[in-house]
């Protein structure tokens, strides 16, 4: 008979989410629901009536891990709506900023997943905060990579968190020749470290893949060979940057997108019937607790071509580079491979950037209310912002953020995994939950949905 177990909150990722899992007698997940429990932010409602300059800055505040992606997607959706072409050097700066964000985010994620992995040849899990070698030098390398990513972001974008430099129509400030050299030097330094870090991470991940069991709360849990496998599709718009509705051939299609309500997707009211007080940290939810993912989930389920899709590093590599490894480990390895990719692309962009070039468009139209969208390849996947701007004011705004896409896909990928490893599967998506929390009112029907949520 199936039992219900709830892990709430899930740990070592951004935001608040939980797992409600229906498991069989052997503890294998039959149906997994991973849902966001971060309260709705309401950024999309706040945006209405604000100026097009303000809204991307507000949108960026939805999260501090990839604010760069939100700023860029927000600004570019405004530019797509008003149909504003920006100068080449402004594009280069945004490209550099984008990759700087990806670099620091991958490094941060390394810290979050290392405690799930083992030092090769031992049964010791990696504690990234230990002062002992060999982990210490790895941790230092990770911090240096983050520092490099954030410093490059600061120089090109004004700020590593919530970048101030990008604006509708380009960038506020061009970087000087000295700043260009600084970014170049840092990127070159980062490249060496990124190669080392990628090799290290892949070695550790392959070691985890070869293992038969993992220790969770003192119990040896068998690791299935197909941990995290799913049959959903991949969605990616660009290996590094993104696409907008202004492109000649956009790589994302609004008409293929549809969003459904959480209660069409998640399980209904249930009672927790399995609990493990030894599960880290603090045990799972006690038996007898009522759970209701349908009503508790603070997110919609976006679909592309009628089904949830995976977005993120593996989706990018699978779409653009023929990468074909499935499962949790495959996903992690794809992310590590983006380390060096992003630095090579960054170095090329810095090289091409002209410090004396123009960075603001000569003419910035104020918009006629037509819809424009921009998709940005954030570290954890495709971040689409949609906007309608008229006379410089935002009429309508919507954000389709990476982890929203992944909620449905990851829930599907949980099936077949031991419930104790469900969080390991979730972490492979590098979830960033706070921005993934929102409701979109698309049509009259959905307005009733919003009311329902408030009840």
């Amino acid at each position, binding site marked *: 008979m199936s039992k219900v177990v709830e892990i709430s909150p899930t740990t070592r990722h951004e935001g608040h989410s939980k797992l409600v899992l229906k498991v069989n007698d052997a503890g294998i997940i039959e149906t997994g629901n991973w849902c966001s429990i971060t309260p709705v932010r309401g950024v999309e409602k706040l945006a209405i009536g604000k100026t097009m300059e303000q809204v991307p800055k507000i949108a960026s505040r939805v999260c501090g891990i990839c604010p760069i992606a939100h700023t860029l997607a927000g600004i570019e959706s405004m530019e797509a709506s008003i149909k504003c072409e920006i100068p080449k050097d402004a594009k280069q700066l945004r490209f550099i900023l984008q990759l700087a964000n990806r670099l620091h985010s991958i490094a941060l994620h390394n810290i979050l997943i290392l405690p799930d992995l083992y030092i090769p040849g031992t049964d010791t899990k990696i504690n990234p905060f230990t002062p002992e070698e060999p982990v210490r030098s790895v941790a230092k390398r990770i911090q240096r990579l983050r520092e490099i990513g954030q410093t490059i972001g600061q120089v090109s974008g004004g700020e590593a968190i919530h970048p101030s430099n990008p604006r509708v129509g380009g960038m506020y*400030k*061009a970087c000087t020749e000295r700043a260009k050299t600084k970014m170049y030097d840092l990127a070159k330094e980062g490249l060496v470290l990124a190669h080392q870090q990628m090799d290290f991470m892949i070695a550790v991940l392959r070691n985890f893949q070869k293992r038969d069991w993992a220790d969770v709360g003192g119990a040896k849990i068998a690791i299935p060979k197909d941990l995290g496998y799913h049959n959903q599709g991949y969605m990616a718009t660009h290996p590094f940057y993104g696409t907008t509705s202004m492109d000649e051939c956009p790589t994302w299609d609004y008409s293929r997108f549809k969003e459904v309500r959480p209660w069409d997707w998640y399980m209904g009211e249930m009672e927790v019937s399995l609990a493990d007080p030894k599960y880290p940290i603090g045990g799972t939810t006690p038996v007898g607790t009522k759970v209701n993912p349908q009503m508790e989930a603070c997110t919609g389920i976006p679909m592309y071509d009628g089904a949830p899709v995976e977005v993120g590093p593996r989706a990018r590599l699978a779409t653009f580079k023929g990468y074909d490894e499935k499962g949790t480990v495959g996903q992690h390895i794809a992310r590590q491979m983006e380390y060096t990719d992003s630095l090579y692309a960054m170095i090329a962009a810095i090289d091409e950037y002209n410090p004396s070039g123009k960075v603001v468009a000569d003419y910035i139209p104020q918009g006629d209310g037509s819809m424009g969208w921009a998709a940005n390849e954030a570290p954890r996947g495709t971040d689409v912002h949609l906007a309608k701007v008229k006379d410089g004011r935002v009429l309508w705004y919507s954000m389709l953020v990476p982890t929203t896409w992944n909620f449905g896909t990851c829930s599907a990928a949980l099936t077949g995994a031991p419930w104790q490893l469900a969080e390991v599967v979730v972490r492979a998506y590098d979830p960033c939950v706070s921005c993934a929390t929102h409701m979109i009112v698309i049509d009259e029907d959905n307005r009733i949905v919003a009311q329902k949520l408030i009840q």
Partner: protein
Amino acid sequence: MGTELGKYKSCVSARSTDKEILKGAQDGGIVTQLFAFALDEGIIDGAIVAGAGDEPWRPRPFIATTKAELFAARGTKYNICPNVSFIKEATRSYGLDKVGIVGTPCQMQAVRKGQLYPIGLRDVGDKIALAIGIFCMENFPYQSIVQLVEDHAAMKMEAVKKMEIGKGKFWVYGQRGQVVQLPLKVTHKYEQPGCHVCLDYVANLADVSTGSVGSADGWSTVFVRTRAGDSVWAKAIAAGCFETQPIEKVKPGLELVSKLANEKITKNKTTLEERATFGVGKALRNPYI
């Protein structure tokens, strides 16, 4: 009082040994020389100075990364130059890692406050390598300077070669050789009202602070205040950048500096007290408490 000069490690009367610097300097060329030396030595990789603005004698913060750029910003411009507003940008799109900044006592307070509470100044505090403060009794808005020069001194702004406050007068030197002196009684009403709550005359929070008061013409009084300031100053002296005289042997010396500092403090304390009873049932805050 006894605290009017702030804490300092050493105090001398000094002037630059570089004739080029002295040519366009206000007094002893201390700021330009010290920044130039720090740039050469790699102690700073750029300095925020008062560069030329769009209008004559209206300064604009400017990030000088070469000696030539520093030289172009020599001399005092008696109106507001928001140097601190550039401090973040210097570390961002200008790509500086070691920033030098020159400013009035209030600007030094802002720099230190920014280092202590870096709100909106992420990763900026540790990049401030040398903060040079200049003595300041009060400052003027640009419009005031226009009024003083064009109306009171009857000179066109473009035609002014140098402005100076000294010996109890505001001096305007024209390019054709005219010299106009205005009694400070005339200039008082043109001062920036915000300056009247300031209790700092000699930039107590700078690494090195300097000004003409206390030294002979063409020389400046220099207070070396912090470890960072001491290290730069000692290196600059060793490199022969400055000639110095012990401040005790100089006339009028520290006595005058103390006198003026006390005057400023006493005068502005009165304003602070007035403000405590100002307004409708709600006093204005004393920024020093």
